[in-house]
């Protein structure tokens, strides 16, 4: 399903208001920090405690999230979200991926030190810092990751005042 109008803002606000602990990763994290690029999904790594998964499930229900590309339109449950796998969802606000771990098994707690808090419409939202995102993309090294590297690199240089 292609959402009528992707509204990732609304997903982020809903997560923040519900107090769900997540780190925004992937290209949405890049965009939030000023990288001039685009993406068709919002990727987050969530803390996989029972309490946090319960909060995340409330948001998932609110945004009508179901398994992406599955004709049965299954809604994820606690079992899906408590593990390290990737739960890929389509929602009324666009595609939303809940990742139990990334980068060879790094969970929320492992990424925390490499994340930063940004102000998002008055709410604190945690995103993977650009330098860490760049390192993750380099390690992943798939064509789509390699394509993103120049944009992230140049944005870091611009922020740090390095001209070419």
């Amino acid at each position, binding site marked *: 399903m292609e959402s009528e109008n992707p509204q990732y*803002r609304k997903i982020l606000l809903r997560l923040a208001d519900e107090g769900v602990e997540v780190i925004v990763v992937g290209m949405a994290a890049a965009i939030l920090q000023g990288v*001039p690029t685009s993406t068709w999904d919002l990727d987050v790594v969530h803390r996989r405690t029972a309490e946090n998964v319960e909060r995340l499930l409330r948001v998932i229900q609110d945004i009508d999230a179901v398994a992406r590309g599955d004709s049965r339109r299954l809604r994820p449950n606690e079992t899906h979200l408590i593990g390290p796998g990737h739960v890929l969802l389509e929602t009324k606000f666009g595609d939303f991926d809940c990742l139990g771990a990334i980068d060879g098994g790094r969970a929320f707690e492992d990424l925390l030190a490499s994340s930063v808090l940004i102000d998002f419409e008055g709410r604190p*939202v945690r995103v993977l810092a650009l330098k860490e995102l760049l390192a993750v993309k380099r390690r992943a090294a798939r064509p789509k990751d390699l394509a993103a590297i120049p944009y992230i690199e140049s944005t870091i240089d611009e922020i740090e005042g390095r001209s070419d």
Partner: protein
Amino acid sequence: MPEIDSNGVDRSQIRRQLKLTPSERLQALETFLSSVIQLRRGIRKPAVSQDSSSTR
């Protein structure tokens, strides 16, 4: 004026993004994606047959 760096990235686009708030950056993305969806919808629209006999 574009300022292309050695990565081939236009630094003026980065500077424009950095002037926005995170929320504004996401809004710009949403606007762009919505435009792409509208364009795709237009492209996919089936052509109307000029031959009326083919539908009767």
